[in-house]
């Protein structure tokens, strides 16, 4: 198999056709909760990409060399604990060594522990049977897809503020319907990258 083509295919699938948020429904809470302003949406996405790639880099070897084949039933417990620990470590590390980044991303990190997109992508990498390198690419692609969806949706929501919304749809309902329309536009990508 030509590895360059598969990398491109994984990137395209992760960002467009199999978008984390809009077609797999992972990470809906931050998608709806943190997308009111474009700059907060951007910071949150960067934090998610960071945690996703590092979490994949740690959980993949743990699963492949420690849990497989005898202890696969421990996957859920081990993965969530490892992710929680990694998030804590990243937080401590950034706080100590890279203060500006901590100030920008710090508050999003605790939220990411319970973000199903991170646990979801580490598990999907295992279920899809990807090797280590492709798992990392897949995590990166999923994170970029998350970012794209967040930024697009934040843009849509900033327009919603000034829109004349019918009384009964005000608030969360119109946000969800706007999300439906954004998801609809992503259906147009179906078929790209196989």
């Amino acid at each position, binding site marked *: 198999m030509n590895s360059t083509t598969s990398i491109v295919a994984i990137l395209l699938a992760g960002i467009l056709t199999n978008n984390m948020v*809009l*077609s*797999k*429904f*992972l*990470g*809906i*809470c931050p998608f*709806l*909760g*943190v*997308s*009111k*302003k474009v*700059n*907060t949406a951007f*910071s*949150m996405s960067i934090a998610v990409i960071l945690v996703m790639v590092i979490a994949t880099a740690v959980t993949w070897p743990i699963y492949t060399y420690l849990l497989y084949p005898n202890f696969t*039933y*421990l*996957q*859920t*417990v081990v993965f*969530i*604990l490892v992710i*929680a620990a990694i998030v804590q470590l990243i937080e401590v590390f950034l*706080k100590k060594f890279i203060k500006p980044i*901590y*100030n*920008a991303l*710090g*508050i*999003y990190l*605790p*939220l990411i*522990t*319970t*973000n*199903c997109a991170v*646990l*979801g992508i580490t*598990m*999907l990498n295992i*279920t899809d049977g990807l090797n280590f390198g492709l798992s990392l690419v897949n995590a990166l692609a999923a994170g970029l897809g998350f970012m794209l969806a967040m930024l697009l949706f934040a843009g849509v929501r900033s327009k919603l503020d000034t829109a004349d919304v019918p009384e*009964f*749809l005000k*608030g*969360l*309902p*119109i*946000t*969800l*319907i706007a*999300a*439906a*329309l954004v*998801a*609809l536009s*992503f*259906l147009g990508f179906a078929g790209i990258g196989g």
Partner: protein
Amino acid sequence: MKSKKLSILTNGIIKENPVLRLVLGTCPTLAVTTAAANGIGMGIAATIVLVCSNAAISLLRNFIPDKVRIPAFITVIAGFVSVVQMLVKAFAPAIDESLGIFLPLIVVNCIILARAEMFASKNPVLPSILDGLGMGIGFTATLTLMGAIRELLGAGTIFGMTVTAEFIDPMIIFLLPPGGFFVFGILVAASNALARRQGKPVVEHLGCANCPSRSACHNAVLDGEEKPVECAAKATEEPKQEKVEEIKETTQEEASEEAQEKIVEEAPQEVAEENEETSETVEETVVEETDEKVGGSNE
């Protein structure tokens, strides 16, 4: 006493329906409701985990140190999720297939962590079990309803039985992601309309108020109404003050359950300061009042 227990049970089914009123656990709600049967399967699996984890956390509530409570809760929940995962795999492989990755993802379902944090860690075992059961039933009922609507519109069937498929062409879009968002939006609008008719507060948007991790993130307002950078800076520079604030708030929350009136006096100030951070009771009473006013002026 008995009626109080009953109200804990029914609380989660209607008044604080986890999906439509608290807007928690949106990921599985949107993802698995392509068929009514999937909704029931997901609902029951989550209910079992919720009841067991609520019971266990309530029993352990005096032993878990406050600082590590979130990781401790997650570990307990993950244990029960693994048990349920194995049971489903063994006895209902079809459901395991259709739920896929969302079965292990019950671990990060906000409803379960939120109930552990807000209810089970503060209450005795029996009320915690009832609370878990009520929330679980509310979750299951909503998921089944949403699954039935999407299945009927998208495939013309309900629980696999043909209903309208023969004379109306099914609209496949309702089985695809946009349909999920759309049906969920309409359901929330409907529940808001019912709430408005009864003078109860409506769900405006997702905020920090219901998030289980909000104490962990220093109560930062993430939707951009306040400057999050300030919060982060405050958290690093003045840890002592921040801790005092946290304690104050927990005591306020506890107090709100017992003495609503005292807090209502403080409410206007608090609401002005941080709109979403106010405890549920305060929000409810305040919005109720404004709702009444609005209703009055309209008439």
